[in-house]
């Protein structure tokens, strides 16, 4: 039986992709300080904001995030909180950090929730199980913030690109 390749050439591997998404499971705010730097973001359902893949071939993984946060009433001042897109184990280039996304936040009594987005590209080896996840990366000392784990508002989305092509 002939195989319909459309306009694709038959002498090259077929380009294929896979998609993953995790939305927060529940709806809850989490108060954090600089003591929480390095911790994974909660999913409000007892787990974490992460997605996993095991590629069959070397490939790229495009990972994007949306996270919203506000400041706690702890200083009447602007502060910076970063969420990061991370990967474990490190990717084929030795990278653990994909992208770090700064949020500009003030006390909630004045400035409400603000969403920030990030995008990262990792290069993956075949046969290894990778997890991309969201992390509390940095917060100015002496301040507090709340990030929200909500199924409508908190997401990590992955697209596995070019398996067997790159």
């Amino acid at each position, binding site marked *: *039986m*002939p*195989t*319909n*390749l*459309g306009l*694709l050439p*038959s002498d090259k591997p*077929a*380009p*294929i*992709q*896979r*998609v*993953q*998404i995790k*939305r927060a499971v529940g709806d809850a705010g989490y108060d954090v300080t600089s003591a929480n730097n390095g911790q994974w973001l909660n999913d409000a359902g007892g787990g974490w904001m992460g997605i996993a893949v095991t590629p069959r071939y070397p490939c790229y993984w495009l990972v*994007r*995030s*949306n996270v*919203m946060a*506000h400041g706690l009433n702890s200083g009447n001042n602007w502060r910076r909180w970063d969420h990061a897109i991370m990967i474990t184990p490190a990717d084929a280039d030795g990278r653990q950090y994909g992208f770090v996304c700064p949020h500009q936040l003030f006390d909630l009594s*004045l*400035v*409400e*929730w*603000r*969403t920030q*987005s990030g*995008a990262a590209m990792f290069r993956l080896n075949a046969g290894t199980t990778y997890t991309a996840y969201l992390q509390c990366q940095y917060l100015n000392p002496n301040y507090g913030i709340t990030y929200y784990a909500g199924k*409508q*508002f908190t*997401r990590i*989305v992955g*697209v596995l690109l070019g398996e067997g092509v790159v």
Partner: protein
Amino acid sequence: MTINLGNLPSQLVLPNGLGQIARGTYDGVNTWNNTVPAQPMQDGNGQQMKVQITPQRAGWWVVHAESIWQTPDAVWTYWHWGIYLTPADAYGWYDDRNHICVHSAIGWSEQTITTAFRLNAGIAYTAYIWWPNSTKGWNQSWWGGKDYFYIKGEFYEDHE
């Protein structure tokens, strides 16, 4: 030479991803507030900001939108905007949002939203940039120009 298609049928074109994009068409300011009911946002010329697809096979639709916002009011005001899918996806999901808070003193702020929906084969789906009318009050403005306002879709059919 043999071609390993896994579980893919051989009578359809090999899945290779499909893209869609709609851009704003009006280089000007559009201002709404909490008197405007929930509805698709507009391109500034009366057209809804949306992308559509009827997939041949089940798969994932990654939908991504970008916009810039400001308020003309000298207060901190906040609201939602997002991506709305109709009909709901294979898991019953249809509504993803961002939250924004601005003041007239800071001018334009950029926002990006990304989500993914699981689609069934043979169904016509539409994804809109959505105004959920979730405002606290005051006025909210977006720029309708093509360089600052778009929604795009990336569809990836199953190959497992």
